[in-house]
């Protein structure tokens, strides 16, 4: 495989192609919308979704080669491309991958076809725009993972907002207007401050280099700032990422966005977009500002927020009447684990954080897909409207049970591996926080199983549920890869762990040594 890939010079073009293909897809869909204007609505709809699926499948297949072509052990960026963009400002189109971003890119590309299949029948209005927006969204998401220029990163970071805003706002639920605006503005508050910080970093880098640059590598290796400035810049980056993660107390956009978004929106939000936040911490906030990240006060603060998020998210999830909202709060809890793992800063916890990142993508993505399926049949997300449906939809019930177990972190599923690694690694540096975080194993079981019981078990009290139809082949088929991932990662996570291990180790070591070099003390220096 490796030989084949190098024979077609795969790494030289794959990243730009992955970014461009969905953009062309969007254009293609709009062109189709224009060309087929006279056709019957049903035919247009069928063709549009097929076209979208084709594009996303092509994207997924193309991206698969990354698994072989990216060698995690190599220290530099792989599949890197560096082109000039705005020379006057030193802004370049610099992209590249390491083991961490490669797994996230694959998560994105592999999940997207499933997302399309997930909304195969539920989206019927303005389908062309819908799929075009999904494609633009994909460009942004992939762009964030591959960008190695701070401005390029910011641009990619921002362009995700508009498609998601529209997806929630146009195809969403009853309170979609409120939720979409909240989502947009919440995210923007954080990211605009990050913009100022990026500019500041860039101006410092330009001073060092003598010509303008926003290169990630250059800034990483050459820009040294005084501790106070570092703290401020870290704060700006951290706020942007913390909103996206979302960390307590910046999480309140998430339940609304999740609940109101259509299935595809919820899946993408949970599975990929939240990961941008944690990825941002891993790629930018920590390595660029090690002294701030390792500052005991900052670290304690972040770990505390993470742990509050874990327990708080679980407790609030416990009492949600709406299943989507429950899953949303459970995301707050799960992402808290990621943040704990990142800021505990051991190889184990970092690997665990990455594992939870992937797992949450798979499990919560699957949960939202399942909710979407049952919503399509019953048009309600209220837990109380269900009950006892395992009798009429046994396939659905079985899959839901497995996915819930994965979300709870039952051993044998992927969820366990991630949480265990985070906790076992974090205990070395953050014992108290870890113990508090570990209590969530109880709460997670409580909210998930209670909800599960009220949905698929118990007596069937609602006559509307008696006619429910079980999953069809398409739905089963799209769940199968997710179930396989859940079990595979739970039983044999080594291949994935191997891919991220070198990068995680490098990150931990570099942050530790860099922080040791510049002792983090709050001085009354500059600005």
């Amino acid at each position, binding site marked *: 495989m490796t030989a084949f890939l190098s024979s077609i010079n795969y790494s030289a073009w794959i990243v730009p192609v992955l970014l461009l293909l969905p953009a062309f897809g969007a254009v293609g869909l709009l062109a189709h919308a224009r060309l087929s204007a006279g056709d019957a609505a049903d035919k247009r709809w069928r063709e549009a979704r097929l076209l979208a699926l084709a594009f996303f499948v092509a994207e997924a297949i193309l991206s698969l080669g990354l698994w072989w072509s990216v060698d995690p052990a190599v220290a530099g960026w792989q599949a890197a491309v560096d082109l000039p963009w705005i020379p006057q400002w030193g802004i370049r189109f610099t992209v590249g991958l390491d083991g961490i971003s490669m797994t996230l890119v694959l998560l994105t590309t592999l999940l997207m076809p499933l997302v399309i299949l997930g909304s195969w029948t539920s989206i019927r209005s303005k389908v062309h725009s819908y799929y075009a927006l999904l494609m633009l969204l994909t460009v942004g998401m992939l762009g964030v993972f591959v960008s190695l220029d701070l401005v390029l990163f910011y*641009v990619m970071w*921002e*362009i995700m907002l508009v498609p998601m805003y529209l997806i929630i706002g146009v195809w969403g639920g009853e309170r979609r207007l409120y939720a979409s605006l909240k989502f947009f503005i919440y995210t923007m*508050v954080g990211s605009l401050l990050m913009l*100022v910080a990026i*500019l500041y970093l860039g101006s410092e880098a330009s001073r060092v280099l003598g010509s303008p640059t926003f290169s990630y590598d250059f800034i990483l290796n050459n820009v040294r700032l005084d501790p106070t400035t570092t703290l401020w810049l870290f704060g700006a980056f951290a706020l942007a990422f913390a909103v996206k993660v979302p960390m307590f107390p910046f999480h309140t956009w998430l339940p609304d966005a999740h609940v109101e978004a259509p299935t595809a929106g919820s899946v993408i939000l949970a599975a990929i977009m939240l990961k941008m936040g944690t990825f941002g911490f891993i790629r930018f906030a920590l390595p660029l500002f090690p002294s701030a990240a390792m500052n005991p006060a900052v670290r304690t603060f972040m770990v505390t927020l993470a742990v509050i998020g874990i327990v708080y998210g679980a407790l609030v999830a416990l009492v949600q009447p709406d299943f989507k909202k429950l899953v949303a709060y459970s995301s707050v809890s799960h992402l808290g684990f990621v943040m704990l793992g990142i800021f505990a800063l051991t190889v184990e916890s970092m690997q665990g954080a990455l594992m939870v990142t992937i797992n949450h993508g798979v499990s919560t993505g699957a949960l939202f897909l399942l909710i979407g399926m049952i919503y399509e049949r019953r048009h309600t997300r209220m837990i109380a409207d269900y009950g006892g449906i395992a009798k009429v939809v046994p396939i659905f019930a079985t899959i839901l049970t497995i996915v819930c177990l994965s979300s709870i972190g039952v051993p044998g599923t992927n969820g366990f591996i991630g949480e265990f690694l985070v906790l076992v690694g974090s205990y070395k540096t953050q014992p108290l926080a870890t113990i508090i975080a570990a209590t969530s194993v109880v709460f997670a079981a409580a909210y998930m199983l209670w909800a599960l019981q009220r949905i698929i078990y118990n007596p069937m009290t609602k006559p509307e549920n008696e006619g429910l139809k079980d999953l069809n082949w398409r739905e089963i088929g799209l769940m199968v890869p997710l179930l396989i991932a859940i079990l595979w990662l739970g039983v044999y996570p080594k291949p994935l762990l191997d891919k991220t291990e070198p990068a995680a180790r490098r990150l931990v070591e570099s942050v530790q040594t860099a922080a040791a070099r510049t002792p983090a003390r709050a001085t009354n220096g500059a600005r």
Partner: protein
Amino acid sequence: MNYELANPSQLMQAFAPDLLLMGGAMVLMLWAAWRPESNEHQRAVGKASLALIAATIGMTLWYSTRGLSSSLGVIAVDNFRWATDLICLLGAAGAIALSMDYNVRERILPAESHVLVLFATSGMMVLAAARDLMIVFLGIELMSVAIYVLAGLNRRSEKSAEGSLKYFLLGAFATGFLLYGVALIYGATGSTNLVEIGERVVRGNFIGHPMMLVGTGLLLVGFGFKVAAAPFHMWAPDVYEGAPTPITAFMATAVKAAAFATFLRVWIEAMPGMGEAWFAPIWWLAALAMFLGNTVALAQRNMKRLLAYSSIAHTGYLLVAVATGTLGGSAAFLFYLVAYSLASFGAFAVVITVGREGDANNDLSDYEGLWSVRPWLAIAMSVFMLSLMGFPVFGGIGFFGKWYLLMAAIEAPRPLTTLAIVLVLTSVVSAGYYLNVVRVMFMKPRPEGARDPEPAGALTRGVVLATAVAILALGIMPTRVISWSRGSIPRPPHVQAAAVDAPR
């Protein structure tokens, strides 16, 4: 070539593009008045005006490529002037193009309306060229008097008349302050030439001179009024709402650009030595304009008023560039002016398209579900809104405009980091109303019984398309505009002499 301005014929040559427009406008005025009022005549004059503007643009472009310069005199011959001219001329062309359709709909028959735009534009070109406070005053008045009339052009509309009256009275009032400021500066320095003032301020250490201080302050009031900076902005929403929409677009872009350009030139050439004095006031003016413009816009339902407050907010953003006092700031200023003008003009063009006779259908609710009936129009409007918001890619060049401003603010010798943060935070507030427009168009259903917007004229459609495409294209590839704005910054002789850092 270097014009010797003391020589009248060379002065004439240096002033040629302006003279072309003025002369042409006078001829057209005669022609316009010659024939009875009719739609056809109005259109014909409009076309002729467009041709005249095209000729002037051509001449300006030609001049701008010749590497001209001049001796010290009443007018400047530099790239900043040509750049400002181009922005204003394009604005005028757009305004006339929009007017030709709009006037038919609103039954505004006088053909002179287009010529008045030309007169206002020649005032702007005078402003762009002015290197003497006398010329500045003259330019401002030439521009303003024409705009007073244009604002009241729709004689059927009481709103139009009221806006015009308000603008006139307050404008004259503010002119009084401006003029008094000029007099005091003249009294303090003994000159009205900008470069001379600049040199004397530095040489004579006028920083603590009360007359100079009060004069500068009053001058700032005058400019503040023209660019609609808070708290001198009160006229703007009313006048913008009352004026015929193409004229509103003209005011929001060309008028603002010209006033700002001369403001900037005065500040760069005459006021560097006063930096200590004006830094804090301009800082606060910028902050107040951003804050007030963006918050009050949240409360607006009328699109024209909303865009008026938005333009007040953008005045605040541009003031950030002025506050930097650097060459980088000037480049950012020009770049932003382009970005803002494109988006603002496009937005007003959409307002015209959605609007109906009697300047109706300007309420936000009239935009509900626009996507389902006029998808491309809705998409274009979203591009304009996102561009005004400063959003990357979908907002095109608007993002880089903000980017440039922020970069200038952070890299200034006296970093405006706090102001930069105020800028981004008020941008967040602005998302509240810009996105609201997008949301109304895309996410609300079309109300029962709402009539579809009438098909727009070719010219109007052309303006919408051109601005939208320009915004998006320049948003991907802004390098040309960056080079252009960098090459067009005002460089007064004494600044040129000093080795100055290249702007980024």
